[in-house]
């Protein structure tokens, strides 16, 4: 595969089946996907079309039943759980619809969490966290807990947390789903800015307007990719 070296993500013949009671559900059927570094991709489709499963698989939270997954030219399908955790920690950032902030921790401590988990010394962490707080305009909210933050602020904390270790790919599952239009727009712009800086952005969404902003749109249905369209480089709105 000559293009594998340049690709960030290569999925080859991925199958994923869940057993629900007696019946088997095909969440992914023979998915082949090639993603280059710095791409901005929207994954769309109805509920149960397998788009979340695809995202979890790329994020190494899930394993394929068949097929191979190469991340940055390395086959990650066969890694053991600890190695996968390391890849998640260093190369992948997650953003969730419901933010998933740890409620008892302050905004700063939430952002610090990936650094803490990776075993970075406290002094280095403090430097990086204050830098991130500044970048995301959260400096005056640093000591607030998540219940004292607005939805937009929460998602900004979550984005700061997902990107603090400079991952290669940012996976966002309905990032604006719990936000109103204005704050949603703000969050999307933030994500797009990160994409402009070279971070690969994959957004799973129901929202047609949000999906339309991505340069590459993947539509899924019943576990298969039904369309994969790359539009001309879009102008910032």
């Amino acid at each position: 595969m000559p293009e594998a070296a340049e690709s960030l993500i290569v999925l080859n013949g991925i199958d994923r089946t869940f057993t629900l009671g007696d019946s088997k559900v095909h969440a992914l059927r023979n998915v082949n996907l090639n993603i280059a570094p710095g791409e901005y991709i929207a994954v769309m489709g109805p509920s149960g079309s397998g788009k979340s499963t695809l995202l979890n698989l790329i994020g190494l939270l899930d394993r394929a039943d068949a097929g191979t997954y190469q991340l940055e030219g390395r086959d990650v399908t066969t890694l053991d759980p600890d190695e996968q955790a390391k890849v998640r920690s260093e190369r992948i950032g997650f953003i969730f619809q419901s933010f998933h902030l740890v409620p008892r921790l302050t905004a700063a401590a939430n952002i610090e969490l990936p650094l803490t988990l990776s075993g970075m010394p406290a002094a280095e962490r403090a430097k990086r966290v204050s830098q991130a707080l500044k970048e995301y305009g959260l400096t005056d909210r640093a000591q607030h807990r998540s219940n004292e933050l607005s939805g937009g602020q929460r998602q900004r904390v979550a984005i700061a947390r997902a990107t603090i270790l400079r991952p290669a790919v940012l996976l966002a599952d309905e990032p604006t789903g719990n936000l109103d239009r204005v704050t949603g727009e703000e969050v999307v712009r933030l994500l797009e800015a990160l994409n402009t800086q070279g971070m690969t952005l994959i957004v799973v969404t129901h929202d047609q307007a949000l999906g339309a902003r991505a340069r590459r749109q993947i539509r899924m249905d019943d576990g298969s990719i039904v369309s994969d369209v790359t539009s001309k480089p879009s102008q910032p709105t």
Partner: protein
Amino acid sequence: MLLTDSTRFAVQAIISHRMRSFLTLLGIAVGIAAVILLTSIGEGVHRFVLEEFSQFGTNVIGISPGKVKTGGQAPTGIPTTARLLTMEDAESLKQLPHVTGSTPTVWGNSEVEGNGRLRRTMIYGVDADFAQVFSSKVQIGSYLPRGKAGGSRAFVVLGSKLCNELFGTANPLGARVRIGGLHFRVIGVMEPKGQFLGVDLDDTAFIPAERALELYNREGLMEIHVIYAEGASSATVAAAIKNQLKLRHGKEDFTVVTQEDMLKTLSNILNILTMAVGALGGISLLVGAVGIVTIMTISVTERTNEIGLLVALGARRRTILGLFLGESVILAALGGILGLLLGIGIAQLLRLIVPTFPVHTPWSFAIGALAMSAMIGLLAGVLPARNASHLDPIEALRAE
């Protein structure tokens, strides 16, 4: 993840549910306090009893006639062939190395008549070494003098209570008393010694052993008590005594019991008692441990989301296991510290309120209790923490 960070993370989780965490660790605290208190009382009783027994000094060896052993049936009509312990035996033991004193002992119960009053009391037939062997002191007058064998004079030394009963405040020295059918002259009065296991040690009279043999019409001594120098090995001295007496008797027809052996046996019995009451306290500790399992299980269920997030952020399973185990260990250890303070506090309070009540908390118990509570935390945390580390991250993130 660094250890300090894991600890802080666990502590934050504990603090975020103040009330719940406090009640859980209270369960452990009550258990630890119960164990500490009960074992402290056990240990106190232990020390109290040993002190009672060792008030005469621990470097005492008793020799009694006869040897317990199993043999064929003794031929009827022939008296026992065991040789009696004699005054000469007692005398010969004084010459042994390390031995600082040896007293023959014969005792009985007789009427003592003096100053026109009569009192039935314990009579000890001993010699001059007795006071030293049983660390008693003379209050007034002097103790029985050292005399040559066979030439002891009819002197008596009174116990303080007996003296009080017979003579009241009058000076007893030089007075004549009659014990049984024999007459004695009072030459001294002992200092009060108090009671030993309910026996009044002051209601006594001490007369020379030879006179006692005569009084009670005995041929042999009931016991010989030997005291040896502090620091000498009791086994060595006991062996020397055995050798000496075997030489004199031709065979081992006597029994040597060192105070040390006796105290050791007693100490073992009391240790078992302490352990038994400690085990009773352990039951409440067990209940506390169940409380930790419960609360940790609830905590894992409540924080399913957070566990999913930690996995997504690159936490290894081992890290998650460690976080929850740490939480349960810290919870239990805090409970242990609280229980320790509680237990020691109540023990000290008991001592203040009832000063005669023997309570003693050795340091080893305190440290043991802390180690035990941490251990309980570890065991109680294993199951919930394992569950946490085996959660499917996708399910965990989806949970509400």
